[in-house]
C-alpha cells in the first residue's frame, strides 16, 4: 500500500476536461513546393529528404509552411545552431510539431521535462537525469546489451533474408530502456506502438491523437503506481524518490519524464542502427573496410550519425519577430533539422559524401546547446555494440530488395523495413 499521497486518486481525473491547448486545422494533401508548403510527412520527403533539404539550402534557405498552423524550416547549420542556442526567443514548450500547441501555462516544465523545459527550470530537471546517463552508468549496461544483440542474431540462424529493422534494430533500444525504467519486457510491442502513436502520427486528427496520448499516460501511470507500492532499483523508482529544489517531483513531471525516456530512447537509436546497416548494405567498400578495420567503427559511427542524423527537433516562436528576414509569428513552429545542418557544405567538407574515416566531425546529431540529447552516451553505446555484433555475425551482407526499404516519417527518420540478404 502506497503512503505517498502524490499518487492517490485516479490520474484520469486530471484529464477530465479533454484535449488541452490550441488545435489548428489539419492540412493534408500533396506538397506543391517544399519552400512554401513543406510537410515532413510527405511521401517524397519520407523516402529521401536530403535532396529536398539540399535544394532548400541552396535557394531558400528558410522554408515555410501553413501546415501545422504555421511553421519554419531553417536548413543551414548556422541558422539551426543559432536557434538551438536562442532559448529566449524560441521555447521548447513543445518539441514535436503537430496540430496542437500545448497550453502556455505548461511552461516552464512542459509536457515531458527536461526536453520540453526552458531555462532556468530546465537545468534542474536535467540535472536529475544526467548521472543515470553518464558514461560510467552506461558502461555497466554494455555486456547485457551485447548479449541481447547476440540472442537476436541467434534467432535469425538459418535465414538467408532478414529484416535488419524489424528483426534486429527495433528490439535493442526497447529492451535497454525498458530495463532501465523497470517496465515488463513483455510490453515491448506496446512500447513500439506508443512510438508510432505519438511520434509518427503527428498529422492525424487531434481527437485520435489525444486518445493515443491518453493511452500512453495511463500506461505510465500504472507503472508509477506499481513502483510506488513496490520500489525497485530502476529509473522509475529513482524518479519517484528524486527531488528538485528540495521537493519531490510532481507526478505529472514524473510521468512526462518517463514518457520522454521511453519514447525518445526507442525509435531514435533504432533509426541510427538501421540507417547504419542500410548504408553498409548498400556500400560494399565501406562494409569491407569496417570488417577489416574494426577499430574504425567509433569513427565510422560518428559519420553515420552525421549523414543520417535520425532526429529533428522543434521549437515554438515566443513572440512575433523578424528573424533574419522571416516574419515569424508567436506560436509558429520551427523545425530544427539537425540532419540538414549536418549536410551543410558551409560546415562540413564534402558534406554530401559519407566518409567513414572522417576525422573532424563536429556534427549536431544529438543537438546543440542546453538540450543536448540526455541519452547520447547510451545511444552511442547501443549503436556501437549493435553494429559490432551484427558485423561479427554477418561480415558479408547486402540489400535484398532496395525498393522494399521503407523509412519512417516525421521528426525521427530511420528504416522501418530493411530486408537484407545474408549468407546461409
Amino acid at each position, binding site marked *: 500500500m502506497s503512503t505517498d499521497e502524490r499518487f492517490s486518486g485516479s490520474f484520469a481525473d486530471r484529464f477530465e476536461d479533454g484535449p488541452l491547448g490550441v488545435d489548428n486545422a489539419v492540412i493534408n494533401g500533396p506538397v506543391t513546393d517544399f519552400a512554401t508548403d513543406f510537410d515532413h510527412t510527405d511521401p517524397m520527403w519520407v523516402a529521401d529528404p536530403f535532396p529536398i533539404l539540399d535544394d532548400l539550402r541552396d535557394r531558400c534557405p528558410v522554408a515555410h509552411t501553413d501546415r501545422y498552423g504555421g511553421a519554419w524550416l531553417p536548413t543551414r547549420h548556422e541558422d539551426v545552431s543559432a536557434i538551438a542556442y536562442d532559448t529566449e526567443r524560441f521555447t521548447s514548450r513543445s518539441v514535436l510539431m503537430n496540430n496542437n500547441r500545448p497550453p502556455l501555462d505548461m511552461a516552464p516544465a512542459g509536457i515531458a521535462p527536461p526536453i520540453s523545459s526552458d531555462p532556468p527550470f530546465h537545468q534542474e530537471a536535467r540535472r536529475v537525469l*544526467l548521472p543515470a546517463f*553518464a558514461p560510467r552508468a552506461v558502461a555497466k549496461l554494455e555486456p547485457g546489451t551485447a548479449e541481447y544483440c547476440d540472442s537476436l542474431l541467434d534467432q535469425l540462424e538459418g535465414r538467408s533474408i532478414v529484416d535488419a529493422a524489424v528483426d534486429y534494430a527495433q528490439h535493442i533500444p526497447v529492451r535497454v530502456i525498458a530495463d532501465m525504467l523497470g517496465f515488463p519486457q513483455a510490453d515491448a510491442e506496446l512500447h513500439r506502438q506508443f512510438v508510432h502513436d505519438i511520434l509518427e502520427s503527428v498529422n492525424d486528427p487531434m481527437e485520435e491523437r489525444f486518445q493515443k496520448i491518453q493511452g500512453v499516460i495511463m500506461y505510465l501511470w500504472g507503472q508509477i503506481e506499481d513502483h510506488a507500492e513496490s520500489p525497485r532499483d530502476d529509473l522509475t523508482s529513482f524518479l519517484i524518490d528524486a527531488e528538485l529544489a528540495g521537493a519531490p517531483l510532481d507526478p505529472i513531471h514524473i510521468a512526462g519524464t518517463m514518457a520522454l525516456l521511453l519514447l525518445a530512447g526507442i525509435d531514435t537509436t533504432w533509426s541510427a542502427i538501421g540507417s547504419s546497416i542500410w548504408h553498409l548494405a548498400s556500400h560494399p567498400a565501406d562494409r569491407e573496410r569496417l570488417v577489416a578495420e574494426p577499430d574504425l567503427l567509433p569513427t565510422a559511427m560518428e559519420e553515420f550519425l552525421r549523414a543520417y542524423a535520425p532526429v529533428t527537433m522543434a521549437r515554438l516562436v515566443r513572440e512575433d519577430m523578424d528573424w533574419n528576414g522571416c516574419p515569424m509569428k508567436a506560436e509558429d513552429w520551427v523545425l530544427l533539422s539537425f540532419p540538414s545542418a549536418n549536410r551543410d557544405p558551409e560546415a562540413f567538407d564534402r558534406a554530401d559524401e559519407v566518409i567513414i574515416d572522417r*576525422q*573532424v566531425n563536429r556534427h549536431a546529431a544529438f543537438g*546543440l546547446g542546453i538540450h543536448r540529447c540526455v541519452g*547520447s552516451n547510451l545511444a552511442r553505446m547501443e549503436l556501437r555494440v549493435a553494429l559490432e555484433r551484427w558485423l561479427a555475425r554477418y561480415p558479408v551482407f547486402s540489400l535484398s530488395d532496395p525498393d522494399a526499404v521503407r523509412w519512417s516519417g516525421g521528426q525521427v527518420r530511420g528504416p522501418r523495413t530493411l530486408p537484407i540478404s545474408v549468407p546461409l
Partner: protein
Amino acid sequence: MRVSIDVDRCQGHGRCYALAPGVFDSDDLGNGVELNGGIVPPEFEVAARLAVANCPENAIALDEGT
C-alpha cells in the same frame, strides 16, 4: 600544450573524453573535465587536437605554447 574546457559551453556530448581519454575525463554528469590541470603530455597532443576539432559546442580552447 594546454587545453581548457569552457564549462558554460560544454553540454556533455562526451566527444573529448572519447577521443582523448588521456587528456579528458567525464564528471558524474557526463560533462568533460581536463586531466592533469589541462597540461597535455606530448604523446597525447594529436588526440587532444582531434578532441578540440570534434567538440560540437566549440567549448575547448587549445594553447600550443605551454
